[in-house]
């Protein structure tokens, strides 16, 4: 009894003593360490580190913005432009449909398809290559030819973000079709032979059915000596979309110019140090008939 009394008594001593700060400090290590006084340097270093981490997160967020968020907005703009163009074409009476000779800035006036990228790959083409037009989709260089005309139809498009219509432009091979639809016609352009395919074209790829109307341009006209299916040039080569590509001073009268299509985008991907240029030549054109559409065209050109 007496021992148990003593034990409980001794046990009670620390319990009551826990109230005093001295006993608690002895019992357990200082769990909340006292804030270091005068740690200005410490605060500064920690603040600097936090700023760096924050900047890193902001940069990551910017990548997310570029690669995804811009696509959402461009996707919405593209759907609106597409619906509007569709309605415009539908509302114009058959026979009166014709290409706007001068579409307004930023106005969608044509639609382009690249079957190589899938049957659902289609974008409206806007007039102009300013940021606003290119946010909607590919943009047509003003003062270049209109689809189907002799000369050079220049079209620029984003490769990264903003819907990235020209993301896979590097995957186009010679003879791959690029279709441009206007109010009354489908124009089928095909990518020209690459530089290393020009020699012996007729005996190699030129014999294939899809290449029926594709031949190296330089065979017929010396002025096209620099025009190949794909080229990588510096950004200041504005003459890539000249009527005769890379000839700033047009050497040919309009009547003897080939009907070309030129696509431009940034290169390498994620950089704008250079431009990738794809040149195609008009091989077929089909008047749009009531009740026929892109699916029928694909069948007609053997891409369905």
């Amino acid at each position, binding site marked *: 009894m007496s021992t148990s009394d003593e034990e409980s008594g001794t046990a009670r001593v620390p319990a009551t003593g826990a109230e005093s700060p001295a006993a608690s400090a002895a019992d357990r290590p200082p769990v909340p360490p006292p804030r270091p006084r005068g740690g200005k340097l410490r605060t500064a270093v*920690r*603040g600097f580190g*936090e*700023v760096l981490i*924050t900047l890193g997160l*902001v940069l990551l*967020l*910017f990548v997310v*913005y*570029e690669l995804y*968020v811009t696509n959402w907005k461009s996707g919405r703009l593209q759907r609106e432009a597409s619906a509007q163009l569709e309605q415009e074409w539908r509302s114009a009476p058959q026979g009166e449909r014709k290409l706007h000779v001068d579409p307004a800035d930023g106005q969608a006036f044509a639609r382009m398809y690249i079957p190589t990228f899938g049957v659902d790959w289609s974008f409206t083409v806007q007039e102009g*290559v300013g*940021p606003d037009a*290119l946010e909607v989709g590919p*943009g047509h*260089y003003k003062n270049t030819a209109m689809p189907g005309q002799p000369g050079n139809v220049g079209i*620029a*498009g*984003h*490769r*990264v*973000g*903003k819907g990235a219509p*020209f993301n896979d432009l590097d995957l186009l091979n010679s003879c791959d079709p690029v279709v441009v639809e206007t109010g009354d016609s489908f124009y089928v352009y095909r990518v020209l032979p690459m530089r290393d395919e020009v020699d012996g074209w007729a005996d190699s790829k030129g014999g294939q059915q899809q290449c029926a109307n594709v031949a190296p341009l330089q065979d017929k006209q010396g002025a096209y000596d620099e025009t190949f299916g794909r080229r990588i*040039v510096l*950004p*200041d*080569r*504005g*003459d*890539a*979309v000249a009527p005769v590509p890379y000839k700033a001073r047009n050497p040919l009268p309009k009547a003897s110019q080939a009907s070309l299509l030129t696509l*431009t*985008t*940034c290169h390498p991907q*994620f*950089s*704008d*140090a250079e*431009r990738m*240029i794809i040149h195609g030549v008009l091989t077929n054109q089909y008047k749009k008939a009531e009740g026929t559409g892109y699916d029928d065209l694909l069948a007609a050109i053997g891409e369905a």
Partner: protein
Amino acid sequence: MYGWIWRHLPGPVALRVVEALVLVAAVVALLMFVVFPWVEPMLPFNDVSVQ
């Protein structure tokens, strides 16, 4: 910086967590809708046209 913000958020911990999340969302929205669209044209990787 983050410690300072945390200490200056009013209310109990649960409320502070909500407040912190709202702050983060506000900063992200500001970046996404104001700062990034403004800064983007000045950055050298989205020019696709030849001049």
